[in-house]
Protein backbone atom coordinates (compact mmCIF):
# COMPACT_ATOMS: atom_id res chain seq x y z
CA UNK A 1 0.00 0.00 0.00
CA UNK A 2 1.01 3.63 -0.08
CA UNK A 3 2.86 4.33 -3.29
CA UNK A 4 4.76 1.56 -5.09
CA UNK A 5 7.22 2.65 -7.76
CA UNK A 6 8.81 -0.10 -9.87
CA UNK A 7 11.57 0.25 -12.45
CA UNK A 8 10.86 3.84 -13.45
CA UNK A 9 13.13 5.42 -16.08
CA UNK A 10 12.86 8.88 -17.61
CA UNK A 11 15.01 10.67 -20.17
CA UNK A 12 14.72 14.17 -21.55
CA UNK A 13 16.51 13.90 -24.85
CA UNK A 14 19.89 12.48 -23.90
CA UNK A 15 19.65 13.79 -20.33
CA UNK A 16 18.90 10.94 -17.92
CA UNK A 17 16.47 12.33 -15.37
CA UNK A 18 15.62 9.08 -13.56
CA UNK A 19 17.26 5.69 -13.73
CA UNK A 20 15.74 2.41 -12.47
CA UNK A 21 13.83 3.88 -9.57
CA UNK A 22 12.28 1.33 -7.17
CA UNK A 23 10.61 2.84 -4.15
CA UNK A 24 7.88 2.01 -1.64
CA UNK A 25 6.35 4.95 0.14
CA UNK A 26 4.35 3.78 3.18
CA UNK A 27 0.74 4.85 3.78
CA UNK A 28 -0.01 7.71 6.14
CA UNK A 29 3.56 8.91 6.45
CA UNK A 30 5.26 12.13 5.52
CA UNK A 31 8.12 11.31 3.16
CA UNK A 32 10.66 13.77 1.84
CA UNK A 33 12.41 13.43 -1.50
CA UNK A 34 15.68 15.24 -0.89
CA UNK A 35 18.44 16.11 -3.31
CA UNK A 36 20.17 18.83 -5.28
CA UNK A 37 18.32 20.81 -7.96
CA UNK A 38 18.06 18.93 -11.23
CA UNK A 39 18.66 15.58 -9.52
CA UNK A 40 15.35 14.13 -10.63
CA UNK A 41 13.26 14.36 -7.48
CA UNK A 42 10.68 16.74 -8.92
CA UNK A 43 10.42 14.62 -12.06
CA UNK A 44 9.69 11.57 -9.90
CA UNK A 45 6.98 13.49 -8.03
CA UNK A 46 5.43 14.65 -11.30
CA UNK A 47 5.47 11.09 -12.61
CA UNK A 48 3.61 9.94 -9.49
CA UNK A 49 1.04 12.69 -10.10
CA UNK A 50 0.71 11.83 -13.79
CA UNK A 51 1.86 15.30 -14.86
CA UNK A 52 4.81 13.68 -16.57
CA UNK A 53 4.93 10.20 -18.06
CA UNK A 54 7.76 7.77 -17.39
CA UNK A 55 9.56 6.02 -20.22
CA UNK A 56 9.19 2.67 -18.46
CA UNK A 57 8.11 1.24 -15.10
CA UNK A 58 4.89 1.20 -13.09
CA UNK A 59 3.27 3.38 -10.44
CA UNK A 60 0.78 2.00 -7.93
CA UNK A 61 -1.15 4.36 -5.67
CA UNK A 62 -2.93 2.81 -2.66
CA UNK A 63 -3.14 -0.56 -4.37
CA UNK A 64 -4.39 0.85 -7.69
CA UNK A 65 -2.26 0.62 -10.83
CA UNK A 66 -1.99 4.26 -11.94
CA UNK A 67 0.66 3.86 -14.65
CA UNK A 68 -1.63 4.56 -17.59
CA UNK A 69 -4.04 6.92 -15.82
CA UNK A 70 -4.04 10.63 -16.73
CA UNK A 71 -3.48 13.12 -13.92
CA UNK A 72 -7.15 13.96 -13.58
CA UNK A 73 -8.09 10.37 -12.75
CA UNK A 74 -5.38 9.65 -10.16
CA UNK A 75 -7.02 11.50 -7.27
CA UNK A 76 -3.77 12.98 -6.04
CA UNK A 77 -3.41 16.39 -4.44
CA UNK A 78 -0.54 18.37 -5.94
CA UNK A 79 0.97 21.54 -4.52
CA UNK A 80 3.28 23.56 -6.77
CA UNK A 81 6.30 25.63 -5.80
CA UNK A 82 4.84 28.78 -7.33
CA UNK A 83 1.35 28.04 -5.92
CA UNK A 84 -0.35 27.72 -9.33
CA UNK A 85 -3.21 29.75 -7.91
CA UNK A 86 -6.12 30.26 -10.30
CA UNK A 87 -5.61 34.01 -10.53
CA UNK A 88 -9.08 34.88 -11.76
CA UNK A 89 -10.88 33.03 -8.95
CA UNK A 90 -11.38 33.96 -5.31
CA UNK A 91 -9.79 31.87 -2.57
CA UNK A 92 -13.12 30.15 -2.00
CA UNK A 93 -13.52 29.33 -5.71
CA UNK A 94 -9.97 28.01 -5.90
CA UNK A 95 -10.61 25.58 -3.06
CA UNK A 96 -14.02 24.58 -4.44
CA UNK A 97 -12.64 23.87 -7.94
CA UNK A 98 -11.94 20.17 -7.51
CA UNK A 99 -15.28 19.58 -5.82
CA UNK A 100 -17.18 21.43 -8.55
CA UNK A 101 -15.42 19.36 -11.19
CA UNK A 102 -16.66 16.30 -9.31
CA UNK A 103 -20.20 17.75 -9.44
CA UNK A 104 -20.71 17.62 -5.68
CA UNK A 105 -23.94 19.21 -4.39
CA UNK A 106 -23.60 22.96 -3.70
CA UNK A 107 -24.30 22.74 0.00
CA UNK A 108 -21.68 20.05 0.49
CA UNK A 109 -19.09 22.06 -1.45
CA UNK A 110 -19.81 25.10 0.67
CA UNK A 111 -19.49 23.18 3.90
CA UNK A 112 -16.28 21.44 2.89
CA UNK A 113 -14.65 24.69 1.63
CA UNK A 114 -15.47 26.41 4.92
CA UNK A 115 -13.91 23.52 6.86
CA UNK A 116 -10.76 23.60 4.79
CA UNK A 117 -10.36 27.36 4.95
CA UNK A 118 -10.63 27.05 8.70
CA UNK A 119 -8.01 24.32 8.69
CA UNK A 120 -5.55 26.53 6.82
CA UNK A 121 -6.55 29.69 8.72
CA UNK A 122 -7.86 31.59 5.72
CA UNK A 123 -11.55 31.90 6.75
CA UNK A 124 -11.47 35.69 6.66
CA UNK A 125 -9.85 35.78 3.20
CA UNK A 126 -12.40 33.61 1.37
CA UNK A 127 -13.52 36.40 -0.99
CA UNK A 128 -10.08 37.71 -1.86
CA UNK A 129 -8.22 37.07 -5.08
CA UNK A 130 -4.89 35.27 -4.91
CA UNK A 131 -3.09 38.48 -5.88
CA UNK A 132 -4.30 40.00 -2.61
CA UNK A 133 -2.64 37.30 -0.51
CA UNK A 134 0.92 36.93 0.72
CA UNK A 135 3.06 34.07 -0.55
CA UNK A 136 2.51 32.02 2.58
CA UNK A 137 -1.24 32.54 2.42
CA UNK A 138 -1.33 31.56 -1.23
CA UNK A 139 0.52 28.36 -0.51
CA UNK A 140 -1.91 27.54 2.32
CA UNK A 141 -4.76 28.14 -0.11
CA UNK A 142 -3.10 25.80 -2.62
CA UNK A 143 -2.82 23.18 0.10
CA UNK A 144 -6.49 23.52 1.03
CA UNK A 145 -7.37 23.23 -2.66
CA UNK A 146 -5.35 20.02 -2.95
CA UNK A 147 -6.87 18.58 0.23
CA UNK A 148 -10.43 19.43 -0.84
CA UNK A 149 -10.65 16.46 -3.18
CA UNK A 150 -9.71 14.08 -0.35
CA UNK A 151 -6.72 12.83 -2.31
CA UNK A 152 -5.32 9.37 -1.69
CA UNK A 153 -1.88 10.95 -1.64
CA UNK A 154 -0.71 14.53 -1.23
CA UNK A 155 2.30 15.59 -3.29
CA UNK A 156 4.18 18.83 -2.66
CA UNK A 157 6.82 20.10 -5.08
CA UNK A 158 9.25 22.39 -3.21
CA UNK A 159 6.19 23.88 -1.49
CA UNK A 160 8.11 26.46 0.52
CA UNK A 161 10.82 27.16 -2.01
CA UNK A 162 9.48 30.52 -3.11
CA UNK A 163 8.90 31.86 0.41
CA UNK A 164 11.27 33.84 2.60
CA UNK A 165 13.17 32.13 5.42
CA UNK A 166 10.88 33.09 8.31
CA UNK A 167 7.60 32.16 6.61
CA UNK A 168 9.19 28.98 5.37
CA UNK A 169 10.03 27.91 8.92
CA UNK A 170 6.52 28.67 10.15
CA UNK A 171 4.84 26.82 7.33
CA UNK A 172 7.12 23.85 7.80
CA UNK A 173 6.05 23.40 11.41
CA UNK A 174 2.47 24.01 10.42
CA UNK A 175 2.66 21.32 7.69
CA UNK A 176 3.98 18.84 10.27
CA UNK A 177 1.08 19.58 12.62
CA UNK A 178 -1.41 19.46 9.74
CA UNK A 179 -0.12 16.06 8.73
CA UNK A 180 -0.52 14.80 12.27
CA UNK A 181 -4.17 15.88 12.04
CA UNK A 182 -5.00 14.72 8.52
CA UNK A 183 -2.77 11.64 8.13
CA UNK A 184 -2.87 11.54 4.37
CA UNK A 185 0.10 9.86 2.68
CA UNK A 186 2.31 12.83 1.86
CA UNK A 187 5.39 13.14 -0.33
CA UNK A 188 7.24 16.41 -0.58
CA UNK A 189 10.22 17.44 -2.60
CA UNK A 190 12.88 19.71 -1.18
CA UNK A 191 16.52 20.59 -1.65
CA UNK A 192 16.74 21.96 1.89
CA UNK A 193 18.14 19.25 4.19
CA UNK A 194 17.07 21.07 7.33
CA UNK A 195 13.48 21.16 6.10
CA UNK A 196 13.58 17.47 5.24
CA UNK A 197 15.14 16.43 8.55
CA UNK A 198 12.73 18.51 10.59
CA UNK A 199 9.45 17.60 8.95
CA UNK A 200 9.58 14.11 7.52
CA UNK A 201 9.03 10.62 8.90
CA UNK A 202 11.31 9.16 6.27
CA UNK A 203 13.75 10.53 3.74
CA UNK A 204 14.67 9.49 0.21
CA UNK A 205 17.89 11.04 -1.04
CA UNK A 206 17.98 11.34 -4.82
CA UNK A 207 20.97 12.45 -6.83
CA UNK A 208 21.68 12.34 -10.57
CA UNK A 209 18.54 10.31 -11.23
CA UNK A 210 19.27 7.57 -8.68
CA UNK A 211 18.22 6.87 -5.13
CA UNK A 212 21.23 7.29 -2.85
CA UNK A 213 19.63 6.19 0.42
CA UNK A 214 16.26 5.65 2.10
CA UNK A 215 15.70 5.88 5.84
CA UNK A 216 14.56 7.88 8.84
CA UNK A 217 16.17 11.27 9.46
CA UNK A 218 18.27 9.70 12.27
CA UNK A 219 19.45 6.86 10.01
CA UNK A 220 20.57 9.18 7.31
CA UNK A 221 22.21 11.73 9.53
CA UNK A 222 24.07 9.24 11.66
CA UNK A 223 24.67 6.40 9.21
CA UNK A 224 25.03 7.90 5.76
CA UNK A 225 25.52 5.28 3.07
CA UNK A 226 27.73 7.44 0.92
CA UNK A 227 29.91 10.49 0.93
CA UNK A 228 27.22 12.27 -1.03
CA UNK A 229 24.53 11.67 1.62
CA UNK A 230 26.93 12.64 4.39
CA UNK A 231 27.88 15.91 2.75
CA UNK A 232 24.39 16.72 1.54
CA UNK A 233 22.77 16.40 4.97
CA UNK A 234 25.09 18.80 6.75
CA UNK A 235 28.55 20.34 6.95
CA UNK A 236 31.48 17.94 6.56
CA UNK A 237 35.19 18.28 7.07
CA UNK A 238 38.15 15.95 6.66
CA UNK A 239 40.11 14.96 9.75
CA UNK A 240 43.08 12.71 8.94
CA UNK A 241 41.68 10.18 6.49
CA UNK A 242 38.07 10.45 7.71
CA UNK A 243 35.11 12.61 6.72
CA UNK A 244 33.40 13.93 9.84
CA UNK A 245 30.94 16.63 10.90
CA UNK A 246 32.74 19.73 12.25
CA UNK A 247 30.80 19.61 15.54
CA UNK A 248 31.85 16.00 16.11
CA UNK A 249 35.50 17.00 16.62
CA UNK A 250 37.02 17.21 20.11
CA UNK A 251 39.44 20.08 20.45
CA UNK A 252 42.05 20.23 23.26
CA UNK A 253 45.07 22.38 24.11
CA UNK A 254 47.33 19.44 24.92
CA UNK A 255 48.33 16.27 23.12
CA UNK A 256 46.00 13.40 24.02
CA UNK A 257 45.43 10.55 21.51
CA UNK A 258 44.98 13.18 18.84
CA UNK A 259 44.38 12.50 15.15
CA UNK A 260 45.86 15.81 14.11
CA UNK A 261 47.43 18.93 15.50
CA UNK A 262 47.80 22.43 14.16
CA UNK A 263 47.18 26.13 14.67
CA UNK A 264 43.86 27.95 14.62
CA UNK A 265 44.13 29.99 11.45
CA UNK A 266 40.62 31.38 11.27
CA UNK A 267 38.00 32.32 13.82
CA UNK A 268 34.39 33.19 12.97
CA UNK A 269 31.62 33.71 15.45
CA UNK A 270 27.98 33.20 14.38
CA UNK A 271 25.69 33.77 17.35
CA UNK A 272 26.34 31.08 19.92
CA UNK A 273 28.53 29.13 17.53
CA UNK A 274 32.28 29.45 17.04
CA UNK A 275 33.58 28.18 13.71
CA UNK A 276 37.29 27.50 13.57
CA UNK A 277 39.69 26.55 10.87
CA UNK A 278 42.69 24.55 12.06
CA UNK A 279 45.61 24.13 9.65
CA UNK A 280 47.24 20.77 10.48
CA UNK A 281 51.00 20.23 10.68
CA UNK A 282 50.53 16.87 8.95
CA UNK A 283 52.19 17.02 5.53
CA UNK A 284 49.94 14.19 4.26
CA UNK A 285 46.71 16.07 5.11
CA UNK A 286 47.54 19.75 4.92
CA UNK A 287 43.97 21.01 4.18
CA UNK A 288 42.40 23.10 6.93
CA UNK A 289 39.98 21.23 9.23
CA UNK A 290 36.66 22.89 10.12
CA UNK A 291 35.66 22.69 13.75
CA UNK A 292 32.42 23.95 15.31
CA UNK A 293 31.97 24.43 19.03
CA UNK A 294 29.78 26.53 21.28
CA UNK A 295 30.86 29.81 22.73
CA UNK A 296 30.81 28.27 26.22
CA UNK A 297 33.19 25.50 25.19
CA UNK A 298 35.55 27.95 23.51
CA UNK A 299 35.59 30.18 26.58
CA UNK A 300 36.24 27.21 28.88
CA UNK A 301 39.22 26.19 26.76
CA UNK A 302 40.47 29.79 26.52
CA UNK A 303 40.99 29.41 22.76
CA UNK A 304 42.33 32.23 20.59
CA UNK A 305 43.30 32.61 16.97
CA UNK A 306 46.87 31.38 16.41
CA UNK A 307 46.77 28.87 19.32
CA UNK A 308 48.22 25.39 18.91
CA UNK A 309 45.46 22.74 19.30
CA UNK A 310 44.97 18.97 19.03
CA UNK A 311 41.95 17.39 17.29
CA UNK A 312 40.24 13.97 17.43
CA UNK A 313 36.81 12.57 16.61
CA UNK A 314 34.39 12.98 19.49
CA UNK A 315 33.35 9.76 21.28
CA UNK A 316 30.13 8.43 19.69
CA UNK A 317 30.62 10.45 16.52
CA UNK A 318 28.73 8.18 14.17
CA UNK A 319 28.47 10.13 10.99
CA UNK A 320 32.06 9.53 9.96
CA UNK A 321 33.07 7.87 6.77
CA UNK A 322 36.52 6.45 6.11
CA UNK A 323 37.58 7.31 2.60
Amino acid at each position, binding site marked *: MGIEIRGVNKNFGDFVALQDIDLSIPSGQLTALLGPSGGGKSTLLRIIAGLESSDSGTIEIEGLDATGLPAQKRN*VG*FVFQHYAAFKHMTVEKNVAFGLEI*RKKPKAEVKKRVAELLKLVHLEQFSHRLPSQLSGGQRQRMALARALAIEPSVLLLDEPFGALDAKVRKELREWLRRLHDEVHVTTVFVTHDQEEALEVSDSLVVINEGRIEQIGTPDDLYDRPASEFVLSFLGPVTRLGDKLIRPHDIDITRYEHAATASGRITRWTRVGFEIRLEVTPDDVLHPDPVQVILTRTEATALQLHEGDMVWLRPRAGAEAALAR
Partner: protein
Amino acid sequence: MASRLAQPRTTGTYVRRLLVVGYLFLLVIWPVALVVQKTFEGGLDNLQTALSDAVVTDALQLTVVVALWAVAINTVFGVGISLLLVRYEFPGRGVLSALIDLPLSVSPVVVGLALLLAYGGTNGTFGPALEDAGLQIAFATPGIIMATAFVSLPLVIREIVPVLHEIGTEQEQAAKSLGAGAWPTFWRITLPSIKWALVYGVVLSLARALGEFGAVKIVSGNVAQQTQTATLVVEQKYQDFEQGSAYATSFLLALIAVAALVVVTILRPKDDTDGD
Protein backbone atom coordinates in the same frame (compact mmCIF):
# COMPACT_ATOMS: atom_id res chain seq x y z
CA MET B 1 4.61 51.27 -12.30
CA ALA B 2 4.53 54.47 -14.28
CA SER B 3 5.75 56.48 -11.33
CA ARG B 4 8.65 54.10 -10.69
CA LEU B 5 9.68 54.33 -14.29
CA ALA B 6 9.27 58.08 -14.55
CA GLN B 7 12.59 59.75 -15.05
CA PRO B 8 13.83 62.97 -13.58
CA ARG B 9 12.54 65.61 -15.98
CA THR B 10 15.08 67.41 -18.10
CA THR B 11 14.81 69.68 -21.12
CA GLY B 12 15.07 66.51 -23.22
CA THR B 13 11.90 65.16 -21.63
CA TYR B 14 9.92 68.19 -22.76
CA VAL B 15 11.49 68.26 -26.22
CA ARG B 16 10.62 64.58 -26.75
CA ARG B 17 7.12 65.06 -25.40
CA LEU B 18 6.51 68.03 -27.68
CA LEU B 19 7.95 66.20 -30.68
CA VAL B 20 5.76 63.15 -30.14
CA VAL B 21 2.57 65.07 -29.46
CA GLY B 22 3.20 67.36 -32.42
CA TYR B 23 3.94 64.48 -34.77
CA LEU B 24 0.84 62.53 -33.75
CA PHE B 25 -1.29 65.65 -33.89
CA LEU B 26 -0.30 66.44 -37.47
CA LEU B 27 -0.32 62.85 -38.70
CA VAL B 28 -3.36 61.40 -36.94
CA ILE B 29 -5.34 63.61 -34.59
CA TRP B 30 -6.01 66.62 -36.75
CA PRO B 31 -6.84 64.72 -39.98
CA VAL B 32 -9.21 62.38 -38.13
CA ALA B 33 -10.88 65.32 -36.42
CA LEU B 34 -11.38 66.99 -39.81
CA VAL B 35 -13.20 63.95 -41.18
CA VAL B 36 -15.51 63.97 -38.18
CA GLN B 37 -16.05 67.69 -38.70
CA LYS B 38 -16.80 67.26 -42.41
CA THR B 39 -19.25 64.48 -41.67
CA PHE B 40 -21.25 66.79 -39.45
CA GLU B 41 -20.79 69.94 -41.51
CA GLY B 42 -24.45 70.09 -42.43
CA GLY B 43 -25.64 68.69 -39.14
CA LEU B 44 -26.91 65.15 -39.51
CA ASP B 45 -27.70 65.59 -43.21
CA ASN B 46 -24.73 63.60 -44.48
CA LEU B 47 -25.48 60.68 -42.20
CA GLN B 48 -29.17 60.75 -43.09
CA THR B 49 -28.47 60.87 -46.82
CA ALA B 50 -26.05 57.99 -46.53
CA LEU B 51 -28.30 55.87 -44.36
CA SER B 52 -31.30 56.34 -46.65
CA ASP B 53 -29.23 55.19 -49.65
CA ALA B 54 -29.83 51.48 -50.24
CA VAL B 55 -26.39 51.14 -51.81
CA VAL B 56 -24.81 52.27 -48.55
CA THR B 57 -27.04 50.31 -46.20
CA ASP B 58 -26.72 47.10 -48.20
CA ALA B 59 -22.95 47.51 -48.22
CA LEU B 60 -22.85 48.16 -44.49
CA GLN B 61 -24.96 45.09 -43.89
CA LEU B 62 -22.69 42.94 -46.07
CA THR B 63 -19.61 44.32 -44.31
CA VAL B 64 -21.01 43.47 -40.89
CA VAL B 65 -21.97 39.92 -41.96
CA VAL B 66 -18.55 39.35 -43.56
CA ALA B 67 -16.68 40.82 -40.60
CA LEU B 68 -18.58 38.69 -38.09
CA TRP B 69 -17.90 35.52 -40.07
CA ALA B 70 -14.23 36.33 -40.56
CA VAL B 71 -13.75 37.25 -36.90
CA ALA B 72 -15.56 34.11 -35.72
CA ILE B 73 -13.41 31.91 -37.96
CA ASN B 74 -10.22 33.68 -36.91
CA THR B 75 -11.11 33.44 -33.23
CA VAL B 76 -11.71 29.70 -33.26
CA PHE B 77 -8.76 29.04 -35.55
CA GLY B 78 -6.54 31.51 -33.65
CA VAL B 79 -7.21 30.08 -30.20
CA GLY B 80 -6.77 26.53 -31.47
CA ILE B 81 -3.55 27.14 -33.34
CA SER B 82 -2.11 29.25 -30.48
CA LEU B 83 -2.72 26.41 -28.03
CA LEU B 84 -1.15 23.93 -30.43
CA LEU B 85 1.88 26.16 -31.03
CA VAL B 86 2.52 26.91 -27.37
CA ARG B 87 1.45 23.76 -25.57
CA TYR B 88 2.31 20.95 -27.98
CA GLU B 89 5.38 19.55 -29.66
CA PHE B 90 5.12 18.42 -33.28
CA PRO B 91 7.35 18.38 -36.32
CA GLY B 92 7.20 21.60 -38.30
CA ARG B 93 6.04 23.70 -35.35
CA GLY B 94 8.72 26.33 -35.95
CA VAL B 95 7.90 26.63 -39.64
CA LEU B 96 4.18 26.93 -38.95
CA SER B 97 4.82 29.60 -36.33
CA ALA B 98 6.77 31.64 -38.90
CA LEU B 99 4.21 31.11 -41.66
CA ILE B 100 1.34 32.31 -39.48
CA ASP B 101 2.64 35.89 -39.71
CA LEU B 102 2.82 35.73 -43.50
CA PRO B 103 -0.59 37.37 -44.17
CA LEU B 104 0.66 40.56 -42.48
CA SER B 105 3.44 40.95 -45.04
CA VAL B 106 1.34 40.27 -48.12
CA SER B 107 -0.25 43.10 -50.07
CA PRO B 108 -4.06 42.97 -49.98
CA VAL B 109 -3.96 43.10 -53.75
CA VAL B 110 -1.75 39.99 -53.80
CA VAL B 111 -4.19 38.32 -51.41
CA GLY B 112 -6.98 39.03 -53.86
CA LEU B 113 -4.92 37.71 -56.74
CA ALA B 114 -3.97 34.57 -54.83
CA LEU B 115 -7.59 33.80 -53.95
CA LEU B 116 -8.67 34.41 -57.56
CA LEU B 117 -5.99 32.03 -58.83
CA ALA B 118 -7.25 29.35 -56.44
CA TYR B 119 -11.00 29.90 -56.41
CA GLY B 120 -11.77 31.96 -59.52
CA GLY B 121 -14.88 30.61 -61.25
CA THR B 122 -13.33 30.19 -64.71
CA ASN B 123 -9.51 29.98 -64.43
CA GLY B 124 -9.10 29.16 -60.72
CA THR B 125 -7.48 25.89 -59.72
CA PHE B 126 -10.41 24.76 -57.58
CA GLY B 127 -13.00 27.32 -58.66
CA PRO B 128 -14.67 25.48 -61.57
CA ALA B 129 -14.96 22.20 -59.65
CA LEU B 130 -16.46 23.97 -56.64
CA GLU B 131 -18.88 25.88 -58.86
CA ASP B 132 -20.03 22.63 -60.45
CA ALA B 133 -20.73 21.44 -56.93
CA GLY B 134 -22.85 24.55 -56.40
CA LEU B 135 -20.42 26.60 -54.32
CA GLN B 136 -19.41 29.93 -55.74
CA ILE B 137 -16.51 31.53 -53.87
CA ALA B 138 -15.03 34.27 -56.02
CA PHE B 139 -17.34 37.27 -56.69
CA ALA B 140 -19.63 36.04 -53.90
CA THR B 141 -19.87 36.31 -50.13
CA PRO B 142 -17.70 33.25 -49.33
CA GLY B 143 -14.80 34.80 -51.28
CA ILE B 144 -15.19 38.12 -49.48
CA ILE B 145 -15.19 36.29 -46.15
CA MET B 146 -12.06 34.37 -47.13
CA ALA B 147 -10.22 37.52 -48.23
CA THR B 148 -11.17 39.21 -44.98
CA ALA B 149 -10.19 36.21 -42.88
CA PHE B 150 -6.84 36.01 -44.73
CA VAL B 151 -5.74 39.56 -43.99
CA SER B 152 -6.76 39.47 -40.31
CA LEU B 153 -5.64 35.89 -39.62
CA PRO B 154 -2.55 36.49 -37.42
CA LEU B 155 -4.06 39.20 -35.21
CA VAL B 156 -5.72 36.97 -32.61
CA ILE B 157 -2.74 34.62 -32.56
CA ARG B 158 -0.21 37.41 -32.05
CA GLU B 159 -2.12 38.61 -28.99
CA ILE B 160 -2.69 35.22 -27.36
CA VAL B 161 0.63 33.44 -27.89
CA PRO B 162 2.75 35.70 -25.63
CA VAL B 163 0.13 35.48 -22.86
CA LEU B 164 -0.02 31.68 -23.12
CA HIS B 165 3.77 31.61 -22.75
CA GLU B 166 3.58 34.04 -19.87
CA ILE B 167 0.97 32.18 -17.78
CA GLY B 168 2.82 28.89 -18.15
CA THR B 169 1.21 25.53 -17.59
CA GLU B 170 1.13 25.34 -13.79
CA GLN B 171 -2.48 26.46 -13.41
CA GLU B 172 -3.57 23.99 -16.08
CA GLN B 173 -1.63 21.20 -14.37
CA ALA B 174 -3.15 22.12 -11.03
CA ALA B 175 -6.62 21.91 -12.60
CA LYS B 176 -5.75 18.51 -14.03
CA SER B 177 -4.49 17.20 -10.70
CA LEU B 178 -7.80 18.35 -9.20
CA GLY B 179 -9.65 16.14 -11.65
CA ALA B 180 -10.48 18.52 -14.52
CA GLY B 181 -10.33 17.02 -18.02
CA ALA B 182 -9.07 18.85 -21.10
CA TRP B 183 -12.34 20.65 -21.83
CA PRO B 184 -13.15 21.95 -18.31
CA THR B 185 -9.50 22.98 -17.94
CA PHE B 186 -9.75 25.04 -21.11
CA TRP B 187 -13.07 26.68 -20.24
CA ARG B 188 -12.45 27.34 -16.59
CA ILE B 189 -8.71 27.99 -16.41
CA THR B 190 -7.04 28.73 -19.77
CA LEU B 191 -9.76 30.84 -21.35
CA PRO B 192 -10.25 33.18 -18.37
CA SER B 193 -6.48 33.66 -18.21
CA ILE B 194 -6.18 34.74 -21.84
CA LYS B 195 -9.53 36.57 -21.83
CA TRP B 196 -8.21 40.12 -22.29
CA ALA B 197 -5.62 39.23 -24.86
CA LEU B 198 -8.32 37.39 -26.78
CA VAL B 199 -10.74 40.31 -26.57
CA TYR B 200 -8.02 42.67 -27.78
CA GLY B 201 -7.11 40.33 -30.63
CA VAL B 202 -10.77 40.01 -31.62
CA VAL B 203 -11.23 43.78 -31.61
CA LEU B 204 -8.14 44.26 -33.79
CA SER B 205 -9.44 41.57 -36.15
CA LEU B 206 -12.84 43.21 -36.24
CA ALA B 207 -11.32 46.58 -37.06
CA ARG B 208 -9.20 45.04 -39.79
CA ALA B 209 -12.14 43.02 -41.12
CA LEU B 210 -14.49 46.01 -41.31
CA GLY B 211 -11.86 48.02 -43.10
CA GLU B 212 -10.45 45.57 -45.64
CA PHE B 213 -10.43 47.13 -49.07
CA GLY B 214 -7.81 45.90 -51.56
CA ALA B 215 -8.34 42.16 -51.29
CA VAL B 216 -12.11 42.52 -51.21
CA LYS B 217 -12.09 44.84 -54.22
CA ILE B 218 -10.52 42.10 -56.34
CA VAL B 219 -12.38 39.08 -54.99
CA SER B 220 -15.83 40.60 -54.64
CA GLY B 221 -16.42 41.94 -58.15
CA ASN B 222 -17.65 45.16 -56.53
CA VAL B 223 -21.29 44.90 -57.67
CA ALA B 224 -23.44 47.48 -55.87
CA GLN B 225 -26.07 46.02 -53.52
CA GLN B 226 -24.68 42.54 -54.09
CA THR B 227 -20.98 42.17 -53.41
CA GLN B 228 -20.04 45.74 -52.62
CA THR B 229 -18.76 46.25 -49.08
CA ALA B 230 -18.74 49.51 -47.14
CA THR B 231 -15.14 50.42 -47.97
CA LEU B 232 -15.85 49.92 -51.66
CA VAL B 233 -18.84 52.24 -51.34
CA VAL B 234 -16.61 54.91 -49.82
CA GLU B 235 -14.36 54.79 -52.88
CA GLN B 236 -17.26 54.85 -55.30
CA LYS B 237 -19.11 57.67 -53.56
CA TYR B 238 -15.96 59.75 -53.34
CA GLN B 239 -15.21 59.29 -57.02
CA ASP B 240 -18.83 60.01 -57.91
CA PHE B 241 -18.46 63.35 -56.08
CA GLU B 242 -20.96 62.27 -53.40
CA GLN B 243 -18.40 63.28 -50.80
CA GLY B 244 -20.95 63.74 -48.03
CA SER B 245 -21.97 60.10 -48.26
CA ALA B 246 -18.32 59.04 -48.49
CA TYR B 247 -17.47 60.93 -45.30
CA ALA B 248 -20.55 59.64 -43.50
CA THR B 249 -19.84 56.01 -44.40
CA SER B 250 -16.18 56.47 -43.45
CA PHE B 251 -17.25 57.96 -40.18
CA LEU B 252 -19.49 55.00 -39.38
CA LEU B 253 -16.74 52.50 -40.23
CA ALA B 254 -14.16 54.40 -38.21
CA LEU B 255 -16.57 54.84 -35.35
CA ILE B 256 -17.13 51.11 -34.90
CA ALA B 257 -13.41 50.29 -35.12
CA VAL B 258 -12.14 53.11 -32.93
CA ALA B 259 -14.95 52.79 -30.39
CA ALA B 260 -14.21 49.09 -29.96
CA LEU B 261 -10.52 49.87 -29.45
CA VAL B 262 -11.17 52.63 -26.96
CA VAL B 263 -13.59 50.52 -24.95
CA VAL B 264 -11.09 47.67 -24.75
CA THR B 265 -8.20 49.99 -23.88
CA ILE B 266 -10.24 51.42 -21.02
CA LEU B 267 -11.66 48.13 -19.76
CA ARG B 268 -8.51 46.07 -20.05
CA PRO B 269 -6.68 45.84 -16.71
CA LYS B 270 -3.28 47.52 -16.93
CA ASP B 271 -1.41 44.33 -16.16
CA ASP B 272 -3.69 41.34 -16.28
CA THR B 273 -0.98 38.71 -16.02
CA ASP B 274 0.31 40.13 -12.74
CA GLY B 275 -0.13 38.01 -9.68
CA ASP B 276 3.04 36.83 -8.05
